C-alpha cells in the first residue's frame, strides 16, 4: 500500500519534470504561429499612422493623392490629433497612401481606423507591389455611421491576385465620394491587425527559403543510405555470422575499432577525394561513404548469429546457394533488427550537419540541417520564421520517432549494451 502511494508521488514528479523538459519544444511551436515579435511580446498589429507629430514627420510613412487640402487637426476621437481633409468639391477620389517597405500583406487580417466622414462615402483598398503593379479591391465599402467611429476593413489577400502580396510597397485607402456627398472628413489611428495564430511563417519559410528542396535532398539521401545499409550491412554481417574464413577475427576487430574513429579525422581526405572525382555538390557524395557503416555490420551480426542454424542447413541440403539462403531465410528473419538499424541510420543521416556542410556548397544541394543552420545565422531576431523553420526541420524526425519509438529506443539500448 505504501509502495503504491510513493509510486503515485513519483509519477506526478516525473510528469512535472517531463513537462519542463519539453518546454523548449512547446515554445518553438507556439512561436512559429505568431505573426511577429516573440512569444512574450507578440506583435498583434501595427499602427501605420497616428498624426500626433506634424505632417513633415509623416512624409516617410504616407502621402496623399487626389487633393492638396489636408492638414493636421486638433479634433479627434480622444486620441490627440487627427488628419483633416477639406478638398475642393471637384475632388471626388482621395487616396491616403501608406508606405509598406516590402512587407507581406498576407500577415494582415484587417485595417482599422477612427474616422468622421459623411455617410455615403465609400472606401476601396488598393495594394501596390514592389514592381509598381497596383490593384484595388473589387467592391467598395460604404460608410454608414455619422460622427467619430472605428471602421474596420477586412483584407482578403486572394482578391489581390494581380500584385505580389508578399512584397507590397504601398497600401492605399481610396475614399470615393459620390456627387451628393460632401467630401471633407477626419481620419486617425490607422492600424493593421495581424492574423493570429497564423501559418504564414511556415508558408514563407517553405516557399522563399527553399526548405521544400532541402527536405527533398535530405529525404533522398537518408532513404538511399538506409536502403544501402540494410542490404550491405546485412550481407557483410551474414559472412561474419555464418562463415568461417581466415582473418575473420582481425577483420571484425578492424570494424569495431573504426566505430570509434570520429568523422573529423577522415573528412579532409574525403573532401579532397570528392573534389578530384568531381563529386562535390552531388547526392552520391553524401550517400556513398555511408552505405556501409561499422555499427550496422556489428549490429546485424549480433542478430544473425543468434538465428537458428538449422534453417540454413536444411536449405543448404536442399541445394540452396548462399545468396538464396541470405535473401530467402536470413533477411526475412532479420526484419526486427533491420527495422531498428534502418530507423536509427535514418535519424543519423537526416540529422548530420558536418559532412553535408563540407561536401555540398550549392544552395539547391543543401540538406535540411545545412539550410537551417545558415538560415538561423542570417535570421536572428526573426523569431517566428526561425521557429517555423526549425519546426519544419524537426517535425519529420519527431513524426518518425512517434511512429517507431519502440525500435528507436531498443536500437539505442541494444547497440550500447551489447557493445
Amino acid at each position, binding site marked *: 500500500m505504501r509502495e503504491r502511494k510513493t*509510486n503515485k508521488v513519483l509519477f506526478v514528479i516525473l510528469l512535472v519534470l517531463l513537462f519542463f523538459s519539453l518546454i523548449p519544444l512547446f515554445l518553438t511551436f507556439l512561436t512559429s504561429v505568431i505573426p511577429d515579435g516573440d512569444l512574450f511580446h507578440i506583435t498583434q498589429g501595427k499602427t501605420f499612422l497616428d498624426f500626433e507629430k506634424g505632417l513633415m514627420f509623416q512624409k516617410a510613412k504616407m502621402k496623399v493623392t487626389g487633393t492638396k487640402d489636408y492638414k493636421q487637426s486638433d479634433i479627434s476621437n480622444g486620441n490627440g490629433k487627427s488628419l483633416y481633409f477639406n478638398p475642393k468639391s471637384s475632388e471626388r477620389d482621395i487616396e491616403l497612401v501608406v508606405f509598406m517597405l516590402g512587407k507581406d500583406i498576407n500577415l494582415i487580417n484587417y485595417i482599422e481606423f477612427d474616422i468622421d466622414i459623411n455617410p455615403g462615402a465609400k472606401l476601396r483598398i488598393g495594394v501596390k507591389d514592389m514592381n509598381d503593379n497596383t490593384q484595388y479591391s473589387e467592391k467598395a465599402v460604404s460608410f454608414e455611421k455619422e460622427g467619430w467611429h472605428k471602421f474596420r476593413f477586412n483584407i482578403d489577400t486572394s482578391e489581390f491576385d494581380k500584385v505580389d502580396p508578399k512584397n507590397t510597397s504601398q497600401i492605399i485607402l481610396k475614399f470615393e465620394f459620390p456627387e451628393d456627398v460632401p467630401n471633407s472628413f477626419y481620419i486617425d489611428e490607422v492600424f493593421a491587425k495581424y492574423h493570429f495564430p497564423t501559418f504564414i511563417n511556415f508558408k514563407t519559410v517553405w516557399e522563399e527559403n527553399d526548405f521544400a528542396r532541402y527536405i527533398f535532398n535530405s529525404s533522398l539521401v537518408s532513404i538511399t543510405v538506409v536502403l544501402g545499409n540494410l542490404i550491405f550491412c546485412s550481407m557483410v554481417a551474414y559472412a561474419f555470422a555464418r*562463415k568461417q574464413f581466415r582473418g575473420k577475427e582481425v577483420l571484425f576487430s578492424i570494424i569495431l575499432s573504426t566505430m570509434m574513429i570520429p568523422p573529423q579525422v577522415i573528412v579532409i581526405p574525403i573532401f579532397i577525394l570528392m573534389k578530384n572525382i568531381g563529386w562535390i555538390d552531388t547526392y552520391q557524395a553524401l550517400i556513398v*561513404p555511408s552505405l556501409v557503416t561499422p555499427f550496422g555490420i556489428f549490429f546485424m551480426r549480433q542478430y544473425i548469429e543468434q538465428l537458428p542454424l538449422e534453417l540454413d542447413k536444411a536449405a543448404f541440403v536442399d541445394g540452396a546457394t548462399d545468396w538464396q539462403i541470405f535473401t530467402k531465410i536470413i533477411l526475412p528473419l532479420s526484419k526486427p533488427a533491420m527495422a531498428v538499424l534502418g530507423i536509427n541510420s535514418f535519424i543519423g543521416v537526416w*540529422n548530420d550537419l558536418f559532412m553535408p556542410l563540407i561536401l555540398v556548397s550549392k544552395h539547391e544541394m543543401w540538406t535540411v540541417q545545412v539550410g537551417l543552420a545558415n538560415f538561423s545565422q542570417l535570421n536572428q531576431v526573426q523569431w517566428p520564421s526561425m521557429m517555423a523553420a526549425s519546426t519544419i526541420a524537426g517535425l519529420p524526425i519527431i513524426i518518425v520517432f512517434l511512429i517507431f519509438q519502440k525500435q528507436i529506443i531498443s536500437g539505442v539500448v541494444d547497440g550500447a549494451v551489447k557493445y
Partner: protein
Amino acid sequence: MTYKNKQKWVIFLFLSPWLIIFAIFGAYPIIYSFITSLTDYSGLNPSMNFVGLDNYIRAFQDEVFLKALTNTIIFVIGTIPFTLGIALFLAILLNNKIPLQNLFKSGFFLPSVISMVVISTMWIYIYSSSGLVNTILKSIGVTVQDRSWLARPESALISIMIMDVWAAFGYYLLLFFAGLQNIPAQLYEAARIDGASKTQIAFKITIPMLKPTLFFVIALNTIRSFQIFSEIYTMTGGGPSNSTQTIVHYLYQTSFRKFQMGYGSAMAYILLAIILLITLVQKRMLRSDFV
C-alpha cells in the same frame, strides 16, 4: 572449381561492400590524413611540402587551438556530472512500478532524436535578449543585460553547455534504465531477506552492478562531447572572441575556411589521440573492475 574455392569467392562477395567502402572512405583517408598532417597542404593548390611535426608543434603554440582545447575540456568536465546525474536520477525514479513508463522513456528521450541544429536554433531564441531566460529572470526581479546570453564571452560557453545537458540526458537515461533493469531481482531479494537497509542496497548492489554501464556512458559522453560542432557552428561560430571555440569547430574553420588542411589534419589527429586515450582508459577500468 572446387567447393572450397567457390566458398572463398562467396565470402569475398558478401564482404565486398564493406571492403570497397572501407578501403576508399576509411583506410585510405585515415592514412592520407596522417600524411597530410605532416605537410603544409592548403587544399586549394596541389603543392604539398613535407614539414615534419611542425603542424603538431604549431597547434600547441597556437593560442586559439589551446583556447579551443581548454573550452572543449571545460565543456566535457562541466556537462558530464549534470547530464549523467540527471539521467541516473530519472532512471532510478523510472525503475519503480510507475504507470506509463514507456511514455516517460519516450518523452525524455525525444530531444535526443532532434538534430543539434534544430535544438540550437530553439535555444538561440531561448537565450535571446527577449527570450525565455531573460523573461523569467525579469519576472522574478533580476536585472538582466539587454543582450543575448550567447553574445557575451563570459556566458556563451556555459549557455551552450546547459543546452547540451538538456539535449543529451534522455539518451543516457535510456542506457542507465537498461542497466538498472539488467540487475537481477534475486540480488535485491536476497539483500532484503538478509535485512539490508535501502542505502546499503543502493551502495552495495545498485551502484556496483551499474559500474560497467557507468564507465561506458562516461566514455561515450566524453567522446561525443569532444566532437561538438553543430551547436557551435549554428549558435556562435566560435565567438564572441573565441569563447566558444572548440577543437572540431576550429578544425573546420582552419581546413575549410582558411584552407590550411595540413594544419587541420594535425588537429584531427590530436583529436583522434585524445579519443583513443579515453577509450583505452575506459576499457582498462572495465577490465580491472571485473577481474
